[in-house]
């Protein structure tokens, strides 16, 4: 039982990261129906920006997190403006392939500048460990979960209580109608990319601090897992991304913990196939008819 609780704690910390990344996937998909495969790499760049701000600018955890989120938000907007906006009216496959291109571009440009070697993260949080019975919690795990929850509350607030949020919801329902109502579609899409990328950046910093190791290709696997989380939760749905992220994290840990650690990734991807067959819209996804 205690081991089970410990595994759940492990799963929640890992799942929070996936959830933060999955939010960006799901928001972008919701608004322009694009699977932004470069999203995992924005997370990687977030980890490096966090590394730079903590190491060279000597910032504490929270300022570093905020600087990283802002920088990633700008990066997300730039990516959208440069790579996706000119293709707004192209077929979806064109944009999808462009997204893969952007992903590779970010990975190898980073590798050129920072080298491919694994770097260890500077210590900004205390190494304090808490024992609850025989369940071990460390400071980093607490920070990850608390930061994730805080950011999600903030996101819910933005989406449901602000004008930008209203515009985002309107654009996601019907882009043309929203435009006719006087909503600036282009800047709304920009905001969506900014928010999604900012969250990915935050996930990057948290991962760097938690696992103490970053490299230019670190975004690939978590990016894919977060994508599965988004699909599981129902792509396009924000609460779905949170639930999906946490579920995938816990599932991975339980497969390693009680099954065979070698099949962990296989289990997650097999799960994706099963969802796509049984319930393609995911847990909280809406059943929308494709316009022919």
């Amino acid at each position, binding site marked *: 039982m205690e*081991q089970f609780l*410990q*595994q759940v704690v*492990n*799963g929640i*910390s*890992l799942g929070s990261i996936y959830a933060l990344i999955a939010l960006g996937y799901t928001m972008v998909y919701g608004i322009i129906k694009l699977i932004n495969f470069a999203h995992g790499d924005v997370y990687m760049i977030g980890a490096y920006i966090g590394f730079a701000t903590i190491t060279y600018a000597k910032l504490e955890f929270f300022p570093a997190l905020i600087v990283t989120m802002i920088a990633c938000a700008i990066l997300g907007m730039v990516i959208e403006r440069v790579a996706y906006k000119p293709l707004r009216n192209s077929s979806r496959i064109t944009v999808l392939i462009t997204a893969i291109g952007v992903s*590779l571009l970010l990975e190898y440009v980073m*590798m050129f500048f920072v*080298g*491919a*070697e*694994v770097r*260890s993260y500077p210590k900004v949080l205390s*190494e304090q*460990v808490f024992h609850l019975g025989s369940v*071990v919690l*460390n400071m980093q795990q607490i920070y990850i979960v608390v930061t994730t929850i805080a950011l999600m509350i903030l996101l819910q607030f933005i989406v449901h209580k602000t004008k930008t949020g209203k515009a985002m919801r309107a654009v996601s329902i019907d882009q043309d109608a929203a435009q006719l109502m006087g909503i600036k579609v282009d800047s709304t899409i920009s905001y969506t990319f900014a928010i999604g990328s900012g969250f990915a950046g935050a996930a990057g910093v948290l*991962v760097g601090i938690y*696992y*103490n*190791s970053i*490299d230019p*290709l*670190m975004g690939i*696997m978590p990016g894919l897992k977060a994508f599965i989380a988004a699909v599981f939760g129902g792509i396009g749905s924000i609460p779905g991304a949170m639930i999906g992220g946490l579920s995938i994290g816990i599932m*991975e*840990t*339980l*497969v*390693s*913990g*009680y099954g*065979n*650690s*070698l099949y*962990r*990734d296989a289990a997650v991807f097999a799960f994706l196939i099963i969802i796509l067959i049984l319930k393609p819209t995911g847990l909280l996804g809406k059943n929308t008819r494709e316009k022919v």
Partner: protein
Amino acid sequence: MKKGLIFLLTIVFVVGLMTGCGGGAKNTTGDGGAADSAAKEVKIGINYELTSGLASYGEASVDGIMMAFDEINAAGGINGMQIKPVKFDNKSDAAEATSLATRLMTQEGVVACLGPATSGCYMATIPVAMGNKIPIISASATADEGVTTTAKGDVNEYVFRLCFNDSFQGVTMANFAANNLKAKKAVIIQDRSSDYAAGLTKNFISTFEAAGGTIVDKEAYVAKDKDFNAILTKIKGEKFDVIFLPGYYQEAGLVIKQARDLGITAPVLGADGFDSPVLLELAGATALNDVYFSNHYSSLDKDPLVQNFIKAFTEKNGKAPNAFNALGYDLGKYIADAIKRAGSTEPEAIKDALAGTENFVGVTGSFSMGADHNPIKSIVVIGLKDGVQDTSVKVDVK
């Protein structure tokens, strides 16, 4: 990603061929005049992992090689010839290593190639060496099969190495666990994405079980994983005396850190893949207690040869040498020694001299080259205390 790379390589290759034709012609004339003036320098290829995942090994090896070459050149070179290293980065990629080996042997006109440092990349260059009849030597490719001998057991005539193989490391660590640590039960956490870890695991299990021990659990991860909490929590609930962790430092550092954070205090055993300063950065000093790994050399060795090397290396590079530096240094000295004994820069003569090496005295131990092109040398088991080398035990070949 691969496609793009192949496309780029094709362009590089085509351009290389065009320019190479001119260069090749020049080389032929150069060889013709080799008897008189061109014999002033001897080109040695250096094909190492200088960037990407395994860069730590490649860079360390090259630092050692360069130091050896600088010393030899400063002392007048080999039989009056200066060594001219031709250095390339294979980006820790086997395909890249192969095309660089081809380039070094067919266009750069090297008499022998050193590296790559890791088995996967080194093995990829073997067909090139055999085809061009130019010897290649790695100081650290420890894979059991397919390096100096083929799967059938035939010796690869132009392929040499300066290190023991993985089975010897696996056997040594199993004996160390059973005899020195008195362990009865072991858990294995294996890197499933490398041949290196597979070879170590196989030999560790057979030796440990033969010594009366049991393997309680066997877990696996793949390279680039960052979260090991799930498997560590699982093994925490089991009874065991040691953890055997065959893998490379990038993941090993994180495994050890997360294990210690979860309160697992059992000794952790590994092999030469642990030997990198990055291990300490990733795991932190407090986690690196009761950690033992087999290695090629220890800086604690009192031999004056070793101590002089450490002193000279530290002066030159501003940091203490690790095993890959030491192996690289020995490699540089070894190839120079073979060329000197061969008395010629013909790859064929150099190959014979390499194979016929007797009692070569190096920093990583003295050895003679065995008939299977593996050196006959001893192994060291290093113990860490607060991240620093604290103990070393030398084990000889049986």
